[in-house]
């Protein structure tokens, strides 16, 4: 399997080397992730940098109910839920310093992790431009005045959810989509996984586990206490981050830089985003 650095897209500018180095480091850990083989920077080969990884067989379930039916039956949900938490706990247990992943840049102690992530996504919103979005602004104002502090800095996947893992033989075969991996607060991945967009009308986070069940299993598997206030901060931040991604896509479409109509669809899907923001803020 070859993954070439995208020329443009929702998270531009792209650099695939950090995710390659993280995936290489994860080979020595229990985290189920594709094994990477080599990285090629020379643009003479395929115009843009790329890396090669082993093919992982499986299917990618999406976090969307079809005709009101659950994404997973109870058995699958139990197995995959356990794998989902187990892999997250294993990821957060990686000794990133020993694994030579310092190059990802550890945030400053205290509120540094939260401040850096908020600034990152505020930057995307600002670059996307477009008309005012008051509900998004409200969430950003709330986040700015409530930055949580933490001394726990771990690897953070950044997009840990149903839709980003492969299932084979009823188990999670690999966690994929590592392009947002960074060093930060482990509660960030929990907040992202709890965002309503990944569960719709299902009571299960990512269609896998009830919220309290997710927290309890994560505490058991990681030995780390779940700080609900921090998870809530990151759940609100998750909506700002997702909004920033959608606005970036819309901006590219508006400017005629992409013909991908999925970017234009974000215009209509903004209704779901608005409701997700309102729910995360406790307004709905």
């Amino acid at each position, binding site marked *: 399997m070859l993954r070439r650095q995208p020329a443009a897209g929702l998270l531009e500018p792209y650099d695939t080397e950090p995710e390659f180095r993280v995936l290489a480091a994860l080979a020595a850990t229990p985290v189920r992730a594709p094994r990477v083989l080599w990285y090629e920077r020379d643009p003479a080969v395929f115009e843009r940098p790329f890396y090669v990884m082993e093919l992982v067989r499986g299917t990618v379930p999406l976090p969307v109910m079809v005709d009101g039916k659950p994404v997973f039956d109870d058995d699958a949900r139990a197995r995959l839920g356990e794998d989902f938490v187990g892999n997250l706990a294993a990821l957060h247990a990686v000794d990133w310093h020993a694994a030579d992943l310092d190059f990802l840049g550890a945030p400053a102690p205290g509120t540094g992790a939260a401040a850096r992530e908020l600034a990152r996504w505020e930057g995307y919103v600002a670059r996307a431009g477009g008309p*005012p*979005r008051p509900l998004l602004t*409200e969430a950003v104002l709330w986040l700015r005045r409530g930055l949580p502090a933490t001394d726990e800095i771990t690897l953070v996947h950044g997009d840990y959810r149903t839709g980003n893992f492969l299932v084979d033989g009823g188990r999670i075969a690999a966690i994929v989509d590592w392009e947002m991996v960074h060093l930060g607060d482990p509660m960030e991945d929990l907040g992202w996984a709890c965002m309503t967009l990944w569960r719709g009308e299902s009571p299960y986070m990512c269609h896998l586990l009830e919220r309290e069940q997710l927290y309890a299993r994560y505490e058991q598997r990681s030995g780390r206490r779940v700080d609900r206030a921090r998870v809530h901060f990151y759940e609100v931040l998750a909506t700002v981050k997702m909004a920033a991604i959608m606005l970036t896509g819309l901006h590219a479409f508006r400017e005629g830089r992409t013909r991908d*109509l999925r970017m234009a*669809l974000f*215009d209509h*899907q903004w*209704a*779901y985003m*608005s409701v997700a923001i309102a729910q995360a803020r406790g307004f709905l």
Partner: protein
Amino acid sequence: MRLPPAVILAGVARTLEEDVLPAVESRTARGLVFAALEMLANVQDLVEWRADVREEELASAAAALGDAAAQLEASGLTADAARVRDAVAAAARLPDREARGCALDAALEDVLVVADRERERPGIDAVHAAVRAHLVNQAVRDLMRAQRPLLNRISQG
């Protein structure tokens, strides 16, 4: 605030012509794509978002700003209240509906920034609540009109 219909239709036409058409082999199907392109070219500059829907949204925003201005005044923030009322009046004079929507949304943001800055001030919660109620109602209105996403079908082709 949404993308103008002309921008959406032009984008759909571009995708049909440059990404879909080259993959269509049936002559009949290719002919239908060209028919769709001609149709899109003819309507793209003639359509706009439904006026009654947009007017309802604008009226709700203006009413929320009116309430917020009254609450700002009651909280002693007279200058902020005056600025909000001026913004609503200025928006009403704009001939273009989308520009009015933008101006009202900017005023809503302004109120939220004031509410955040003055968050310790007694009565400021009522300012925030006036705007919040409109934003939540608007989100729900948008959701009621949105079609269920075809994410599975889009990803599987």
